């Protein structure tokens, strides 16, 4: 089979978490009845004027700082002209020549063979714009219904360079971006509600050849669809070229039911948007002082936190990366470590990635609403570290805390008598009893069967209802059998 190189660029529409719209004072709360949150500006009544929401600009500055982009001291709003019923003005207010953020980049992990390596996806720009309304095509007796609640919702459109070479890289970038915008608190990240939507520009070429003609897949609102749509599109384009046909630039839609992409019916002039500066809006000025003020309020960023967890707490790069994929997880870990002590950091990381993560996944819960708090987990880990709890007993404590049966690990230990037996004078008589009752096992052990030893350990653990310190039982038992 001949070799093809895939080139992908993404444009992501991130809905900004503001209370009101970007150019009007209408609410942006999700789920209102149709058109209850569409004011005179949003529905474009004559004589209205847009007034820019300061918080939307703050979100853009935060993003620019987080991706190390250039924040424009002056940026311009432009009108993007097209006709569609859910865009009542006949133009969308966006930014064109001078966007609020230019450049910057995002690091992703990619697999080359077996070894994961870092790759930087460069960003072209990020610009502020308003969302359109929604068109509903069903059930209106042959009419289209228009809901303008979403019209005027602030968006940050984030555009990458064509730096991704596979659907897996595109998904890795989209996940990294999703994690970042939720981390810095500019987007709620809810993909079902459309708060984070991706368009993928896909083309293929022979290695070293000029860029192929691209097709743009619109409106992908899940990571799975993003992957499926790109994979389908790559296969389709390669097949077209190999069968001697040409790729024509087009906008395509992905149908999740069939797993296929198909070109939208569109007029050739659909992309002639005739951008021009919006005379209703003056240049947006962002002073260095304002940038500094926003910077001061920015949380520690995921990569910085990851590096710190490795350096301060000795976590492996892998553990630190997993724990900092979500800000809530990073904060959880930080709080737990501050309570349990840095020496228990690794143990906390293990419990977070083991039992806690498994339970959260099983119940489809987010760490932000984990029934076990960071402080509770820290308390439990301290009791493991000081020998009070074996890992088996700790699981029982974990269960009790998860089911909200007690306020902390010590209360569970107290109420259930779960304290690990680490007192040799208490364990020894039990070992003696077990040995007296199992002469056959002793013989087998002396004949060289290690299995028989394990059986004896098992008997002691059973006799202590699992509370004996297993390591201590091992040591004591060996000493007795040797003696």
């Amino acid at each position, binding site marked *: 089979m001949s070799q093809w190189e895939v080139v992908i660029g993404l444009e992501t529409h991130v809905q900004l978490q503001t209370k*009101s719209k970007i150019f009007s004072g209408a609410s942006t*709360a999700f789920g209102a009845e149709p058109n209850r*949150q569409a*004011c005179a500006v949003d529905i474009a009544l004559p004589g209205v004027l847009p007034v820019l929401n300061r*918080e*939307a600009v703050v979100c853009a500055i935060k993003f620019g700082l987080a991706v190390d982009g250039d924040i424009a001291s002056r940026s311009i709003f432009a009108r993007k002209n097209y006709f569609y019923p859910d865009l009542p003005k006949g133009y969308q207010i966006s930014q064109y020549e001078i966007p609020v953020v230019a450049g910057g980049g995002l690091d992703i992990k990619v697999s080359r063979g077996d070894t994961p390596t870092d790759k930087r996806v460069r960003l072209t720009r990020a610009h502020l714009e308003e969302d359109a309304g929604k068109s509903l095509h069903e059930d209106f007796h042959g009419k*289209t*219904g*228009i809901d303008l609640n979403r019209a005027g919702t602030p968006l940050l459109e984030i555009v990458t360079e064509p730096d991704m070479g596979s659907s897996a890289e595109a998904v890795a970038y989209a996940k990294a971006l999703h994690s970042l915008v939720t981390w810095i608190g500019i987007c709620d990240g809810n993909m079902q509600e459309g708060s984070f939507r991706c368009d993928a520009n896909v083309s293929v070429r022979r290695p070293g050849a000029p860029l192929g003609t691209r097709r743009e897949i619109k409106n992908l609102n899940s990571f799975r669809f993003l992957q499926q749509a790109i994979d389908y599109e790559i296969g389709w384009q390669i097949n077209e070229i190999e069968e001697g046909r040409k790729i024509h630039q087009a906008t395509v839609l992905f149908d999740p039911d069939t797993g296929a992409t198909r070109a939208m019916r569109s007029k050739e002039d659909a992309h002639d948007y005739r951008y021009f500066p919006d005379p209703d809006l003056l*240049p947006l000025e962002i002073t260095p002082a304002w940038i500094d003020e926003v910077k001061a309020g920015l949380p520690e960023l995921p990569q910085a936190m990851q590096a710190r967890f490795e350096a301060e707490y000795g976590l492996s790069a892998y553990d630190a990366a997993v724990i900092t994929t979500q800000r809530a997880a990073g904060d959880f870990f930080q709080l737990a470590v501050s309570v349990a002590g840095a020496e228990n950091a690794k143990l906390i990381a293990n419990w977070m990635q083991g039992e806690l993560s498994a339970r959260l996944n099983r119940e489809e819960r987010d760490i932000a609403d984990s029934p076990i708090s960071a402080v509770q987990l820290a308390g439990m880990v301290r009791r493991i570290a000081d020998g009070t709890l074996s890992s088996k007993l700790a699981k029982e404590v974990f269960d009790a805390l998860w089911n909200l049966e007690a306020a902390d690990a010590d209360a569970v230990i107290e109420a259930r008598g779960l304290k690990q037996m680490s007192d040799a004078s208490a364990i020894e008589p039990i070992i003696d009893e077990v040995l007296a009752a199992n002469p056959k096992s002793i013989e087998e052990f002396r004949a060289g069967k290690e299995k028989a030893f394990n059986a004896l350990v098992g008997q002691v653990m059973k006799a202590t209802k699992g509370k004996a310190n297993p390591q201590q039982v091992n040591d004591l038992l060996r000493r007795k059998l040797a003696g």
Partner: protein
Amino acid sequence: MSLNPEEVRRIAQLARLELSPQETGRIGDQLNGILTFVEQLQAVDTAGVTPMAHAIDVVQRLRTDVATEPDRRDAFQAIAPETGGGLYLVPKVIE
């Protein structure tokens, strides 16, 4: 620079304006008059002048992020050609 009738028709199409052949001629002449005026402006030497989006040197005023607009759907929909279920109804749009 001047526009030919084909370009005038395309601009009209983009603006969703229907022009008769006579109108196309008349409007073409008017547009070309404007372009001639722009050509005169372009004769000015603007080397070293930063392009500006607005004629006045003022920056955008910003609004505090507070939801202030009341729900006025009923008043707005009273003047709409057709509504139903809270929606504005328009002729069927495909895609």
